C-alpha cells in the first residue's frame, strides 16, 4: 500500500511526487510516456498572474496567488540552476533570435546581458538542424541595434562521420556532446580560442573584465544547466555566454526532465515509465486501486491517495473523438466548450480550455455540481479545465503550482 500514486510523469506529476516524498510519503509515479518537457523550451512561464487570478475558473483563481507563488519558490529551491523572481520576468532568445519573456530560466539562457553588448558573437555549430544563423543574425541586428553581430562557425570532429553519412545533427546531439568528457574539453578550447580572438580584435579592451562588459557570446545547442563540469568550463570564460531556447526537441527541457526524475528517486520515490493504467477501482467516494499493464501482465497497486497528472489533449490525458471527449484514466466528467475554434490559429482557441473542473483542493467535481466526486483524487497540470498555456503563457505556473499543492496536501 502506497501513500500516494501519481498517474502521469511529466512536469506537474513529478513535482507533486517530489513534494509529497519530501514530506515523508511513500510515492509511486506511473507514467505511460515521458511527458512533454522535451517539446517545451525548458523555461517556465507564469503569465500575467494579476490578470489571470481574477479570471473566473482559471486554475490561478482557484488556487490563489499564494499557492502560485509557492509553486515558483518551491521549484527554485529544488533547482537553484533556475533564476527568476516573482512578477519580474527575464529575457531569453527564441530559436529565431527574438527576445521573449520567461519567469524561471536556467541561468545560461538569460539573455538580459545582450542589451548592453556592443559586440555579439553568434556561434554557428556546423550542420545543426533547425538552426538558421543568417535569419537569427538579421533579427539580432534589428533588436540589438547598437551591437555588431558576427557569426562564428564551430565544427566538431566527433560529428564528421555523421555528416558524411548524411545523418542530421540536432541541437540535442550537440548539447549532449558538450556534456561528454571529450566535449567539455573541446568546448573549453573553442571558447578559449574565441575569447582570445575577440580580445585581439576589440580595440581598447585592456582587461578581460572590461571585455565582458561589452561583448557577449550566443551559443545555441549548448545547455549547461545541471552540469557542474560545463558550469566550471563557462565560469573560466571572461565573457557572458547566452544559450538559446530550441526548436523541439529541446535539450533544456530534456535535462530538466532528467533532473526531476533524479530528484524524485533520490527522495525514495518509485518511478514506472512506459506503463499505462488499464483500470481504476473505486469504493464510494474513494479510489483505492489502479491496475496497470506491465511487461505484458497486469499488476495491481493500491494507495491512500491518487494524483492524476496525465496531461491534456497533447499529453493524452484527454481523448477526443469526432463526437465526444473523454478523460482517459478515470472517465471523469470534462468541461467541453460549446464552440471549439476560432479562425485565427494563434488566437484564442476555446477547445484548449477543455479539462477537468476541480475544487480549490484540486478534487474533481461531479458534472454540473460543486461537490467533489472523489475525496482522495487530485488533478494537476494540463488536465485542469479553463486555461490555455499557449494563449496566456502560463504553462509553467499552472503545472508547478498545482503539482506543488497536490504534493503538499496529500
Amino acid at each position, binding site marked *: 500500500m502506497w501513500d500516494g500514486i501519481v498517474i502521469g510523469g511529466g512536469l506537474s506529476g513529478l513535482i507533486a511526487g517530489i513534494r509529497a516524498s519530501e514530506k515523508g510519503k511513500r510515492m509511486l509515479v506511473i507514467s505511460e510516456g515521458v511527458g512533454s518537457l522535451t*517539446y*517545451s*523550451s525548458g523555461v517556465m*512561464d507564469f503569465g500575467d498572474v494579476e490578470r489571470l487570478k481574477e479570471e473566473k475558473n482559471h486554475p490561478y483563481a482557484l488556487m490563489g496567488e499564494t499557492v502560485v507563488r509557492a509553486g515558483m519558490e518551491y521549484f527554485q529551491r529544488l533547482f537553484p540552476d533556475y533564476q527568476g523572481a516573482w512578477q519580474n520576468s527575464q*529575457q531569453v532568445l*527564441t*530559436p*529565431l533570435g*527574438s*527576445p*521573449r*519573456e520567461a519567469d524561471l530560466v536556467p541561468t545560461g539562457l538569460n539573455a538580459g546581458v545582450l542589451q548592453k553588448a556592443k559586440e555579439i558573437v553568434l556561434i554557428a555549430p556546423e*550542420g545543426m538542424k*533547425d538552426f*538558421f544563423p*543568417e*535569419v537569427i543574425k*538579421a533579427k539580432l541586428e534589428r*533588436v540589438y541595434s547598437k551591437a555588431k553581430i558576427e557569426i562564428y562557425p564551430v565544427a566538431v570532429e566527433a560529428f564528421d562521420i555523421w555528416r558524411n553519412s*548524411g545523418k*542530421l545533427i540536432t541541437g540535442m546531439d550537440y548539447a549532449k556532446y558538450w556534456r561528454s568528457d571529450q566535449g567539455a574539453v573541446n568546448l573549453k578550447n573553442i571558447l578559449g580560442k574565441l575569447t582570445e580572438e575577440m580580445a585581439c580584435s576589440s580595440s581598447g579592451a585592456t582587461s578581460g573584465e572590461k571585455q565582458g562588459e561589452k561583448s557577449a557570446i550566443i551559443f545555441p545547442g549548448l545547455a549547461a544547466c545541471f552540469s557542474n563540469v560545463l558550469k566550471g568550463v563557462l565560469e573560466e570564460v571572461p565573457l557572458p555566454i547566452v544559450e538559446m*531556447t530550441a*526548436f*523541439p526537441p*529541446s535539450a533544456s527541457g530534456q535535462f530538466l526532465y532528467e533532473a526531476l526524475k533524479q530528484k524524485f528517486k533520490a527522495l525514495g520515490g518509485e518511478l514506472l515509465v512506459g506503463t499505462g493504467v488499464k483500470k481504476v477501482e473505486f469504493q464510494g467516494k474513494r479510489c483505492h486501486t489502479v491496475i496497470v499493464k506491465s511487461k505484458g501482465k497486469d499488476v495491481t497497486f493500491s494507495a491512500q491517495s491518487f494524483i492524476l497528472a496525465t496531461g*491534456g*489533449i*497533447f499529453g*493524452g490525458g484527454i*481523448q*477526443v*473523438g*469526432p*463526437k465526444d471527449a473523454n478523460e482517459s484514466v478515470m472517465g471523469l466528467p470534462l468541461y467541453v466548450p460549446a464552440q*471549439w*475554434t476560432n*479562425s*485565427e*490559429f*494563434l*488566437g484564442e*482557441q476555446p*477547445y*484548449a480550455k477543455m479539462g477537468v473542473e476541480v475544487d480549490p483542493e484540486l478534487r474533481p467535481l461531479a458534472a454540473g455540481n460543486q461537490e467533489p466526486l472523489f475525496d482522495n483524487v487530485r488533478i494537476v497540470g494540463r488536465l485542469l479545465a479553463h486555461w490555455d*498555456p*499557449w*494563449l496566456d*503563457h502560463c*504553462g509553467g505556473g499552472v503545472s508547478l503550482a498545482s503539482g506543488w499543492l497536490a504534493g503538499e496536501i496529500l
Partner: protein
Amino acid sequence: MIDYEVVIVGGGATGVGILRDLSMRGITALLLEQGDLAHGTSSRFHGLLHSGARYAVKDPISASECIEENLILKKIAAPCISNTGGWFVQTVEDDSSFVEQWIKGCAQAQIPIHEVPLSEAYEKEPLLSKEIVRVFEVPDAAVDGFKLVWANAKSAKRYGGHYKTYHQVESFQFEDRRVTGVIARNLLNGEMLTISCKIVVNAAGAWASKIAAFAGVSLEVICDKGTLLAFNQRLFQRVINRLHTPGDGDIFVPHETITILGTTSEIVDSPRENSPLKEEARKLLAIGEEVLPELEKYRVIRAFAGVRPLHREDSDVPGAAEEGREVSRTFALLDHELRDGVRGIVSIVGGKFTTYRLMAEKVTDWVSDKLGNATPCRTAEECLSEVPNTVHEKARRLLPCAAAEKMIDRLGEDADSVLAEIERNPGKGKMLCECEMVSVAEVEKIASDQDTHHLADIRRKTRLGMGTCQGAFCTYRALPLLWKDKGKYDPIEKELTLFINQRWKGIHPVLWGQQLRETELTRAIYASILQLNDNRGE
C-alpha cells in the same frame, strides 16, 4: 499590332490544357490566372481519374468521354497518375436493380468491368465492410491535380506559351461588339496591364459568369461545393466507389500514403464559399463507414472543399439548382457570337477534370477555325513530359529511392537542375519536409521561381506542408529559404502566420484524435516556443 492571338482566362486544368494545345499548334497565347495555377477546383477534388463507370446510368455521354480520356491520360500523363484501378462495391443497402442498369450502361459506354469474387475482394482490401454484396473492377485511377496542371503549363511554356499568375481580369476592350483586349491587374503590385488579342477564351471555371459579364454576356454557372477528407493512411489500395446512384461521401481515392474520401454536394452562392465545415466532415464519416466500418478511428489530417462549376442553360433541367448532382457533368462550349452576338470570345463551362484535355481540344479547334489555322491537335498522342532515364538514374544515386521518384514526378525535367545542385552541395539533398520527402534543393529551386510568391505557392508545387505534420515542422524549416529571397516575401512572421492560418482552415473541421494532438503541438511551437502571437520582444 496585337500582343497575343489568344488570351485565356483561368489557370485550372482546362485553361492550361488550352494553353498547351494552342501553343503546340503555333498559336500565340497568354494565360491569366488570379491566384496560383491549380489553386481552385483543379486541386480541390478527390483526385479521381474517372473510368466513366460512375456516370454509366445517368449520364452516358460523360461516361463515354471519361473512358476515352482515361485511356489517353494514362498514356500522356503517366507521371501524374497512379494506376490503382478501382472497384464499385454494392453494399446490402444498395438497390440490386440499379446494379443491372449499371452493368448495361458500362457495356454501352465500352467501359471494361469484371466482377471480383468476394473472397478475393476481402483478401485484397481487408478493411472493406463485411456487408458487401458484389464487387466490380473498373479502370479508375488516382490523378494528382497539381502535377497535371503544372506539367501542362511547363509543356506549354516549351512550345512558347505564356502565363501570368496573380493577375486578375478587370475588364475587356471592345471594338464594334468584338472583344479586342483584356485589362488585368497584377494583384501583387497593383499594376494594370492591357493585352490586345484576337480571341479571349473564358476558362475561369466557377468564375466564368463574372468573366462573361465583362463582355456583357450572361452565363449561368452553378457553384456546387464539395467537401472532402484526407486520411493519414492508405486505407485502400485502389479507388473504391459505392455501386448506387451517385451520392455524398461514396468515393475513396488512395494517393501515395493518404486516402481522400468525398464528396458532399451543396449549391453555394459564390466560388469563394470553399470552407469545409465540421458538419460536412461528420456526414462524410458517417457515409464512409458503410464501406469502411469504424472509419472515425482513422486519423483525418484535414478537410478541404472545392467548388465545381456546373453549367446550366436556362431551359435545361428544371429545378436543377436545388441538387448539384442532377446537372449534367458534360461540358459546353459557348460561342458568344452565335449565342449573344458578341464576337472574339468563347466560354468553356462545365465538364470535369478527367475530360480537361478533350475540352481543351474542342476549344482549340474552335479557335483554330476562327484564326484559319489548320494544324491538327496532337495532345492525345504527345506525352506531357519525358524525363530521360539518365535523370532517373542520377536521382536514385543522390536521393533516397522514394524521394527521388516523388521529386521527378513533381518536377518533370526540371528535376535535373535540382539534382545538379545536390551534386554540387550534398547537404542540400537533406529532406526539408520529412512527411512528403521534399529536399532542401527542391524547395530552394521552387522558392526562387519567378511565379512563386507565397509559401502556399511552394506548397502547391512541392507538397511541402501537406503531409502528417501539416506544416508544423517544415514551415519553420522553409524560413531561411524565404529569407534569402526576402525582397519577394512579406515579413517572415507574417508569411508564417498566413501559411499556418491557411492550413488551419482545413484542420479545424476535423479537430479530433491524433490531428488535434498535432494541432496542440503546432500551437505550442508557434505560440510558445517561437512566440509568434506575442511581440513584446520587438
